[in-house]
C-alpha cells in the first residue's frame, strides 16, 4: 500500500462492535485523510453502515450494543468526549432523507438553534443561505424558504439534509448511502457537491454503488462480513486489488 502524504483527520484502532452477542465488526483499523473522500463499499450486511455510525457515536442510540477499540478525531478519542460536541464536529447524512417537519429555513437553522448559536437573526440567515448554496439548493428554494420542507422532491430533501449538516460547519461529514433512494440526476447533483465540499471537509461515504465509489472517492475500503478486507487508493482497489475477495466484488462476481 502506498504511503499517503495527507494528514489523517479521523482514524479507528482495532474497533470491535457487538449487537448483543453478535459481533458485527472485527478489529477495524482505518485512517481517513483530511479533505479527501473515502468510500466504504461491500455487500449488504457487511457492517459498513454499522461502522460509519460509530464514527459519530450514533450507534449509542441502539440499545444493547457494545464497542471496544478507539476512534480518534485529531488524535483524541471521541468515545471519551462529550457526545454532543463530537456530533457537532462529525456531521451525518442518512440513507433516507429525513427533513424535520418544519420550514426549509428552520431545517437548516436547527443545528445553530439547538447549539446556542450566539449570532443574531441576520447571522443565522447568512449561515442558512451559505449552507444552501454549498448544498447546491439555494437557487431552487430561495423563494420558498418559509414553506414546509416536505414540499421538496426526494433529491432536494436529501440536499436539504446535507445543507442542514453543513450549517454547523462539521470537520467531518459522514454519508450513509445518501443516494440510494435517488434517481441518477439527483445522484449526480449530490456527487458534484461532494467534490465541491472536499476542500473544507473530510468526507466518508458508504455506498452500495461501486460506480459511485469509483467516481467520487480518493480512497476506498472494502468490507466483508464485518471485516475490512482491503483499503487503498480508489484506483488501486478498482483496477489492481490485492485480495481475491475485493477483485471478485469490484468485478461484479458476487455481491
Amino acid at each position, binding site marked *: 500500500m502506498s504511503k499517503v502524504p495527507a494528514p489523517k483527520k479521523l482514524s479507528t484502532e482495532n474497533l470491535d462492535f457487538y449487537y448483543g452477542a453478535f459481533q458485527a465488526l472485527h478489529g477495524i483499523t482505518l485512517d481517513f485523510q483530511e479533505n479527501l473522500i473515502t468510500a466504504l463499499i461491500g455487500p449488504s450486511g457487511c457492517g459498513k453502515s454499522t461502522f460509519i455510525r460509530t464514527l*459519530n457515536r*450514533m450507534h449509542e*442510540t441502539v*440499545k444493547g450494543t457494545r464497542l471496544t477499540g478507539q476512534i480518534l478525531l485529531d488524535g483524541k478519542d471521541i468515545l471519551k468526549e462529550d457526545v*454532543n*460536541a463530537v*456530533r*457537532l464536529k462529525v*456531521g*451525518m447524512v*442518512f440513507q*433516507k*432523507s*429525513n*427533513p*424535520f*417537519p*418544519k420550514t426549509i429555513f428552520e431545517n437548516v437553522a*436547527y*443545528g445553530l*438553534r*439547538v*447549539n446556542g448559536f450566539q449570532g443574531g437573526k441576520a447571522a443565522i440567515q447568512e449561515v442558512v443561505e451559505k449552507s444552501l448554496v454549498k448544498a447546491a439548493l439555494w437557487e431552487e428554494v430561495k423563494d420558498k424558504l418559509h414553506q414546509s420542507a*416536505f*414540499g*421538496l*422532491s*426526494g433529491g432536494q*430533501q*436529501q440536499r436539504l*439534509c446535507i445543507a*442542514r*449538516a453543513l450549517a*454547523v460547519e462539521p470537520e467531518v461529514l459522514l454519508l450513509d448511502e445518501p443516494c440510494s*433512494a435517488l434517481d441518477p440526476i439527483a445522484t449526480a447533483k449530490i456527487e458534484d457537491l461532494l467534490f465541491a465540499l472536499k476542500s473544507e471537509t473530510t468526507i466518508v461515504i458508504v455506498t452500495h454503488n461501486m460506480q459511485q465509489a469509483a467516481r467520487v472517492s480518493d480512497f476506498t475500503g472494502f468490507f466483508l462480513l464485518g471485516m475490512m478486507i482491503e483499503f487503498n487508493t480508489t484506483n488501486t482497489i478498482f483496477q489492481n486489488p490485492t485480495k481475491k475477495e475485493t477483485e471478485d466484488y469490484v468485478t461484479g462476481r458476487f455481491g
Partner: protein
Amino acid sequence: MKPSSTFKNLVNYTMFAVTGLCTLIAVGILFFILGYLVYNGGKSLSLSFFTNLPAPVGEIGGGMANAIVGSGKVLLLATLIGIPIGFLGGVYLSEYSTQQIAFTIRYITDLLNGVPSIVIGIVIYTVVVHPMGHFSTFAGGVALGVMMIPISVRSTEEFLHAVPQSLREAALALGAPKWKSIVTVVIPAAMRGIISGTMLALARVAGETAPLLFTALGNQFWSPGWNQPSATLPVMIFTYAVAPYEDWHRQAWAAGFVLLTLVLLINITARLALSRGTYVSRG
C-alpha cells in the same frame, strides 16, 4: 365431495347479509340515540335552558345554566390535572423507558383505565371529599382528572412512537442533546396527534356520572369558586330523569341532548385535527 357452487354462493350471500346487518345495527344505534335525543331533547330545549337556574319543584321551566358552567369547570380542572401528568408520563414511556419498564407501565395504565369509574369516585371521596369535609368542584375535577391520566399516557405514547426514528437521529446528529431533540423535534412532530388524543380523553370523561355523584355531588344553585358542591350535566340528567315530574324529564332530555352534542363536537374536532396532522413527506 366438493360443495356445489350454489351452496357456496348461498353461504357467501348469507355471510354478506349477516355481517352487513350487524354493521348496520352497530352504526344505527348511534343514529337512533341521536335521533331520539334530538326529538325529545330538541323540543324541550330553549334559550332559558342555557341561561336560567333550575326552577324550584312545582314550578315549570327553568334551566341548567349552573350545570353547564359546572361541567365546564370540572372538565377544565380535570384537564389541568390529567393532561400534564398523562402527557409527561407518555413522553417518558416513549422516549426514556427501557422495554421491560415500558411494558410494566403500559400494563399498569391499562389497569387504571379499566378501574370502574364508580370506584374512582369512592376513592376520591375518601381521600379528597372526606378530609375537606364537603363535596366540591375540586373533588369532581380530581376524579375526572385521574380518569384522564391513563388515556392521555397511552395516546401520547402512541403518537410519539409514530414519529420516525430517523427524525430523532437527525436531531442528535446535529449535536442536539436528547432532551432538546425531544422538545424541538419529536413532540412538535406528534403535536396534532397528542392534542387530538387529549380531546378524545376529554370527550371520554365528559359524560361520566358515577365519580361525580361522590365528589361534585350536585347543586340547585350557582357554585362560585372550586370549593362548593357543584351541578354538572351528567348528574343533573340522572337526578332529573329519576324524578317523578314530567317537566323534569323534559329537562333531562334537553340536558342529554346538550351533553351529547358537546361530546360529539369534541370528538369531531379531534378527528379533524388528526386527519390533517398525519406525517407525510414526498421524499
